[in-house]
């Protein structure tokens, strides 16, 4: 392989027969280009699906309640269900090992006032874990902590846009705002990938809220992050179990979707992963078809090329070339052409994909399409192998022709 003379022979043969070399290279370059683009587009679609759920934690689940629609154990339909702290604690104790994060939510909208500026914002009362469930990103200061909860502190974390509305470019951290008549200390400013709406929110400790709202222990919703070690199927089963258990605990008909339901990201995840699997299966099928077509293409050209060179091989044999050296020469030439051409196709494809970038996200749901290094390495190996096959089969045949017959060819 590292015989310099052999390489010189091959470069000379490629260089002196440029049209032929370019022709055989073109098939491969084209096949690899298509292959790269296909996989890039598939990965772009995958990225889009993933980012569509990027707002919240992937392992999020939440327990929602409303009104009963089915009578149960003598209870009427239309009964409003209210979650309370006991329900929250029940979940903590019952499913400890299956839960990574847990937070309650109480939703309200209040006017928030700073100096003379005031506006209405959503004020959500939560537990500290809520930060991870909502993927809240702290730009300044800190999020709510256990101590705030214990001491029922009047502290507030505000979204980037709330800060912008009320403070403009001036610092907000450590300032006090008036929330529905009470003074709150701003301890943190956050951003969120979920978009503008998410950044117009504010968060306060749930204990503070419950005290403020009439000293009750009401909860609007319970959010959970299931243990990420759970398989998707186990997580789905876990969600179903929470749903069953909670309905039982709150005397709700086992099938009353409206009264209490658990929304589980695992189900969406499962759907996305099935979708992606199907997509990759189809693309893999088409992609390998393209590659095979490329290999057959170059094989055909090599057969033609070798026919054209039969006489040359005859001359070489008469001068002392062994069949092995003829096969070696042809195979090496074919591998070189396929590898170079394939690499060219790969680079072109990668370049096109990077040029596309996120420009197709809006219309075609393709986000940041790239080919993974694994695919690139795989494709390179396939290229070299295809060069070997494409060269070996016809070279073997050419080497078998008796020198006297090869010499007679023209």
């Amino acid at each position, binding site marked *: 392989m590292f015989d310099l*003379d052999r390489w010189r022979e091959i470069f000379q043969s490629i260089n002196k027969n440029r049209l032929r070399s370019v022709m055989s290279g073109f098939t491969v370059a084209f096949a690899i280009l298509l292959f790269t683009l296909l996989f890039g587009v598939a990965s772009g679609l995958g990225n889009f699906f993933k980012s569509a759920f990027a707002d919240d934690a992937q392992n999020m689940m939440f327990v929602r309640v409303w009104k009963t629609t089915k009578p149960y154990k003598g209870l009427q339909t239309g009964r409003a269900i209210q979650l309370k702290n006991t329900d929250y604690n029940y979940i903590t104790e019952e499913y400890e090992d299956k839960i990574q994060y847990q937070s309650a939510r109480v939703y309200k909208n209040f006017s928030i006032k700073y100096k003379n500026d005031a506006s209405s914002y959503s004020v959500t009362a939560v537990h500290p874990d809520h930060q991870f469930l909502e993927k809240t990103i702290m730009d300044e200061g800190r999020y709510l902590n256990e101590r705030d909860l214990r001491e029922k502190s009047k502290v507030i974390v505000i979204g980037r846009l709330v800060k912008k509305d009320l403070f403009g470019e001036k610092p907000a951290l450590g300032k006090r705002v008036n929330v529905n008549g009470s003074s709150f200390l701003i301890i943190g400013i956050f951003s969120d990938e979920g978009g503008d709406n998410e950044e117009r929110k504010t968060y306060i400790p749930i204990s503070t809220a419950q005290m403020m709202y009439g000293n009750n222990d009401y909860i609007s919703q319970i959010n959970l992050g299931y243990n990420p070690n759970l398989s998707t199927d186990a997580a789905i089963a876990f969600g179903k179990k929470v749903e069953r258990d909670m309905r039982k605990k709150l005397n709700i008909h086992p099938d009353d979707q409206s009264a209490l339901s658990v929304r589980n990201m695992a189900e969406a995840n499962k759907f996305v992963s099935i979708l992606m699997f199907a997509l990759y299966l189809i693309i893999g099928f088409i992609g390998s078809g393209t590659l095979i077509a490329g290999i057959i293409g170059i094989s055909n050209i090599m057969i033609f090329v070798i026919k054209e060179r039969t006489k040359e091989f005859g001359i070489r*044999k*008469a*001068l*002392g070339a062994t069949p092995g*050296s003829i096969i070696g020469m042809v195979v090496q030439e074919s591998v070189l052409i396929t590898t170079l051409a394939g690499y060219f196709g790969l680079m072109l494809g990668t370049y096109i994909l990077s040029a596309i970038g996120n420009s197709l996200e809006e219309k075609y749901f393709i986000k940041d399409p790239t080919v993974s290094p694994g695919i690139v390495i795989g494709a390179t190996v396939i290229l070299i192998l295809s060069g070997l096959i494409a060269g070996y089969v016809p070279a073997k045949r050419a080497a078998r022709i*008796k020198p*006297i017959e090869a010499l007679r060819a023209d």
Partner: protein
Amino acid sequence: MIRIEKLHKSYPIGKDSLHVLKGIDLHIKEGEFVSIMGSSGSGKSTLLNIVGLLDIHDEGDYYLNGQLIKDLNEKKAAILRNKFLGFVFQSFNLISYKTALENVALPLYYKGMNRKERLKVAMDYLDKVGLKDWASHLPNELSGGQKQRVAIARALVTNPKVVLADEPTGALDTTTTDSVMDLLKDINDEGMTVFVITHEEEVAEQTKRIVRLRDGIIISDTPTKAAKAL
């Protein structure tokens, strides 16, 4: 150098077979200059190809340089050709995309000689056939006679035991024919065994021994006037 005994060769043609060589006995010693004559289809090329290990005989024995040629595989044949034999063909058979010098150097590549050395040796042989100045030309930039001299240089470059030439002058006019024959005579004078096929009496007369074939049988085997003159 070459010893052939009761050699037979047939070519299969469909279901039948064409019996081309029908028991050839021939002995060529080292340093001989032999020509084969005979009408078209008499089996001259067939014989030369067998002697050149480009084709295989069916029956009889063939010894090259004392070695019995039997059940040779392609690889062994290639090595023997490279070591013992040099070929000159009617149609020159130069590789079109290689220069005169590279064509001459090619057998040395298969011998495993390094590039620098083989180009030097090849240049010596090009010089010997008077084409040193044409070293960097491609075959299609050379005349027929020049091409054949390049081919002769290529046949000689490995310093073989025997040079085999199948109608080397067949595609040349009389003047170039003479220059090619002079070259072959020179080589022979230096002690090389030369074996040529020809149609032309004048060419055959310049060798030292004429073997005449008819229908696959040797009908005469005589020294030439040139040989008697020595």
